[in-house]
């Protein structure tokens, strides 16, 4: 029974069902046990399922539960598929997921909607597991939309504040734009290749479509549309910073560790298709590069602790896209995993900071908190070191692999590498800006607040600290999936390159120290220059994308809706009626209330006809 793949998403789903059907009637302790327990059990089962795959990464297990829908030649099965790639994913989802659930039992303890919170969290984990285990794209799409729904429900969790509701809708609708592109991609793939089963699709694409074929380009572009939406990459990145309106554990689980990396998973899963369209693949790399730089700039200017982390997430997923774009599939998945460790750690630690300081989000109102909030401080130190790719932390190894792979490709490789290294410099700056401002210097406010802690909140942080530090020594079992040869390209790389890649993040941290640690330099003084002020405003607003989209899409749509509120077609109909009324005495009689007469005449007519029929 425990080797059944179907059980894995079912366990959290069962938790959801129990919590949903009880309608919030269960005591908190039971809710916590059901909510976190179901994920804990799922983690144990995931370990059981994944261990053999880790030992032998060519191992694949499959299970078809039933035929979901079949019409004529179209069939989609509820079929699950576990290989090296999905093994990494299920371990991250259930492992990090369990820690976050455990943390939430403490974090959310005073919330009146405790049960609703865990119900949706469980549904989320279940959908996410379906997404990564699906053996066909339609089932993947079920999980894909399911996690989007849960994300929407959790961003708007505190629904009484209208701006939270707005953020939730923004997230759903923006990702829906991508999802629709992906759905059209599914239509194209099935129509051309006659299946939505991923394995069959990849084989079919390889045999029926040649390298650079138009179909491969179109299909991979459409799937890419879905991926940039879900993973908050350019041009659909605008929803993620606003998604921080949800409770902080949500940000950790959905908007850092799991759901937002679904786009990376999708591309990695369909990598064969992207390899057939090298131009699109290169586009993936450039999208990643542009996003990681854009978000890096913006992260340096934010004041809200969660928004800094949100932009950092966008930027780090940019690295994953960069990796995918240069064909470093394994490295991207590796970075996905290490990022899940250190970003979940950072978000949960931010949650502790926020909760301890009575929902303060502005880092400039904190300051000097390292003694007051020791566990959060330790978490932030370790998390930020990993984020900034400090040597031998987890982030160092994974980012290193991506950048080296970028450098190795012909043509734009050097530029991609330089861009990535510049991004790493920014990462050093913004991650330690946060650390220096919050934990060092003078205490600005909140002098007497104690750290909110306790086992359920401290334990997940401790575990994640260990993984953020040492997670780089875990090697994801994806070599077989991506047919990677054992020989790595590292030997050919000069020591100079290595030295640069180690030095640049340190330089970033150093710059950050000069500005925010030692305060020898001042960002405020920089802002006295008008150019700097303008740039700062631009970066702070996330490069003005919100304003752009408001002007480009939202306003015209609302204007159009407003303009034709009363449906001009109806007015035409009304005009026709009015005209014929004027000229037609019959209609005037009709309008003057003898409608009943008309009805009677119709009924009568039918009746006469019937009698007539009888007589004849």
């Amino acid at each position, binding site marked *: 029974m425990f080797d059944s793949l179907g059980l894995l998403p079912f366990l959290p789903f069962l938790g959801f069902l129990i919590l949903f059907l009880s309608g919030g009637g269960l005591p908190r302790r039971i809710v916590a046990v059901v909510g976190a327990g179901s994920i804990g059990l799922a983690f144990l089962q995931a370990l059981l399922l994944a261990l053999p795959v880790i030992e032998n990464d060519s191992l694949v297990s499959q299970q078809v539960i039933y035929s979901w829908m079949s019409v004529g030649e179209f069939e989609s099965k509820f079929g699950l598929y576990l290989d090296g790639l999905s093994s990494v994913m299920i371990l991250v989802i259930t492992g990090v997921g369990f820690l976050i659930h455990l943390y939430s039992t403490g974090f959310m303890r005073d919330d009146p909607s405790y049960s609703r919170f865990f119900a949706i969290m469980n549904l989320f984990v279940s959908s996410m597991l379906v997404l990564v285990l699906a053996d066909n794209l339609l089932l993947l799409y079920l999980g894909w939309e399911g996690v989007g729904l849960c994300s929407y429900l959790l961003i708007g969790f505190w629904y009484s504040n209208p701006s939270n509701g707005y953020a939730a809708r923004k997230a759903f609708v923006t990702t829906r734009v991508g999802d*629709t592109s992906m759905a059209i991609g599914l239509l194209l793939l099935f129509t051309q290749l006659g299946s939505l089963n991923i394995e069959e699709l990849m084989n079919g694409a390889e045999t029926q479509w040649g390298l650079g074929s138009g179909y491969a380009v179109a299909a991979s572009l459409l799937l890419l549309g879905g991926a940039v939406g879900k993973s908050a990459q350019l041009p659909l990145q605008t929803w993620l910073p606003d998604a921080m309106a949800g409770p902080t554990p949500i940000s950790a689980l959905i908007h850092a560790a799991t759901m937002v990396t679904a786009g990376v998973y999708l591309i990695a899963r369909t990598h064969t298709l992207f390899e057939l369209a090298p131009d699109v693949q290169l586009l993936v790399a450039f999208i990643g590069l542009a996003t990681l730089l854009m978000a890096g700039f913006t992260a340096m200017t934010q004041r809200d602790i969660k928004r800094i982390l949100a932009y950092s997430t966008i930027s780090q997923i940019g690295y994953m896209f960069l990796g995918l774009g240069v064909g470093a599939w394994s490295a991207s998945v590796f970075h996905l995993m290490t990022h899940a460790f250190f970003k979940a750690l950072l978000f949960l630690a931010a949650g502790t900071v926020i909760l301890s300081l009575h929902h303060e989000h502005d880092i400039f109102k904190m300051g000097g908190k390292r003694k007051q909030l020791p566990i959060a401080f330790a978490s932030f130190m370790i998390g930020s070191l990993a984020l900034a790719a400090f040597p031998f932390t987890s982030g160092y190894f994974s980012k290193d692999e991506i950048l080296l792979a970028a450098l190795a490709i012909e043509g734009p490789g050097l530029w991609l590498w330089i861009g990535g290294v510049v991004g790493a410099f920014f990462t050093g700056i913004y991650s330690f800006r946060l650390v220096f401002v919050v934990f060092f210097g003078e205490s600005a406010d909140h002098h007497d607040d104690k750290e909110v802690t306790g086992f359920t909140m401290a334990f997940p942080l401790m575990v994640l600290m260990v993984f953020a530090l040492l997670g780089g020594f875990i090697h994801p079992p994806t070599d077989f999936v991506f047919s990677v040869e054992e020989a790595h390209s590292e030997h050919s790389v000069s020591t100079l390159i290595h030295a640069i890649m180690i030095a640049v993040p340190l330089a970033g941290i150093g710059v950050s120290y000069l500005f925010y640690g030692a305060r020898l330099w001042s960002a405020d003084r920089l802002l006295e220059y008008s150019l700097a002020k303008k740039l700062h405003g631009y970066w702070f607003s996330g490069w003005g994308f919100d304003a752009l989209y408001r002007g480009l899409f939202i306003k015209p749509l609302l204007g159009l809706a407003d303009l034709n*509120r009363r449906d001009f077609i*109806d007015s035409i109909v009304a005009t026709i009626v009015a005209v014929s009324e004027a000229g037609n005495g019959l209609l005037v009689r009709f309008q003057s209330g003898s409608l009943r007469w008309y009805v009677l005449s119709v009924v009568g007519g039918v009746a006469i006809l019937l009698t007539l029929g009888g007589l004849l």
Partner: protein
Amino acid sequence: MSILWILLILFVGGVVAWISEAINKQLPRWLALSSVILAMLPLVSLMDGGDDISSAWLSSLNTAWIPSLGIQFSLAVDGLSLLLIGLTGFLGIISIASAWEEINSRVGFFYFNLLWTLAGVVGVFTAVDLFLFFFFWEVMLIPMYFIIAIWGHENRKYAATKFFLFTQATGMLLLMSLLGLAYFNWKATGVLSFAYEDLLAVDLAGDVERWLMLGFFVAFATKLPSVPFHSWLPDAHSQAPTAGSVLLAGVLLKTGAYGLIRFTLPLFPNASSEFTPVALTLAVISILYCAKLALAQTDLKRLIAYTSVSHMGFVLLGIYAWNLIGLQGAVMTMLAHGLSAAALFSLAGGLQGRLHTRDLRKMGGFWLASPKMAVTAMFFSIAALGMPGLGNFVGEFLSLLGVFSVSVSAAAIAALGMILAAVYSLWVMQAVFQGESTATSGLQDLNRREMLAYGAMMFGLLVMGFFPNLFLVFSDSAISGLLSLDQLVAVAKGRW
């Protein structure tokens, strides 16, 4: 015989319910409820006969009616009609449940009209004599007119008249077309007949076929409705009592789609095939234009009405795909939209009953006071926006999949409707249930009767979403049978 039983029980039940009002005002609703349940029993026996599901008709009945004019009283059921009759029965029960406390005046006559509407609809879904079909088409219209005109809201007379005029005017086109069809059949064979099987075989000249097809198409597209024949629907829906809205959205609209599938396509294959680009364009415009109109509404029921038109666009799209996948998608959309729209109208009616307004600007923050209603509304909004796992997604996805192989642009543009559906559905959720609590938020939550009705509809949508094959199996043979008609095969070969 079992089809006749369904009709008889509904017709007679209606009369009995009307009369029973004289005894007790509570009696009509109980009688109506038991009539609908009783009427659905023969359906079970029909489903049982499903071993021979491959044969065209599961059950049929044929007696002379007006022999001198070649008119027969002939009814037949295939898998498609079976599904739609099932939907009619299910939503009949739901509509009675939603009228339970709302209707307090002339109760007997109300349930008489309700049951006769249902009977008319069942007749439409089963008639295989075209004249008889037209007869039921009228039967279904008149009681519905009364339901809106008598038990409707502030502007009911206007709405009822508009509904009547649209349906009646296009009904006349339908009548003329079918008379024309019978005439050409008579000229060719010397036999006057309205029988479906006979008329299928008529060979029409190109122009004649085009005009006759247009008469059928306009009548059915008005009922569906499709742009530009849709503007009766928002008025009818906003003014009708809840039970009326449930029947309108859930069942009556589907008769239009059924007519297209059963009659327009097979009777006029060449003309319909030529017409495909127009029909697909109308479908795409319906989807996007009415979704856009929904965004601008402040009257909750008008808004849902426009979304209904938008979703029915997917039905039209699937039908004119001319393939099994598209048509099955249309059928699934009909079933799923039947439930989700009925539930949404019912919720809007429930809100109106509690607040005495349909104005969105006067709502907000109801989640806190009525969480069950909020979660229920969330469920059906999510269904309407096409969440996989619920029936609507299956229908819309299959429709799009069917159309994609025919017209990539139609499918791709129609898919944009999925984005707009998310925009309006979630906007409504926020406007009504989220946000700050308002003065009116001391709203009474759903009671047991309501929970039972909504629970049944939720269950239905989940089953459709996760086990669509249970339904598709029934319509599969009917649709495949249709597509394998000689005329259609020839047309399809010529086209694609």
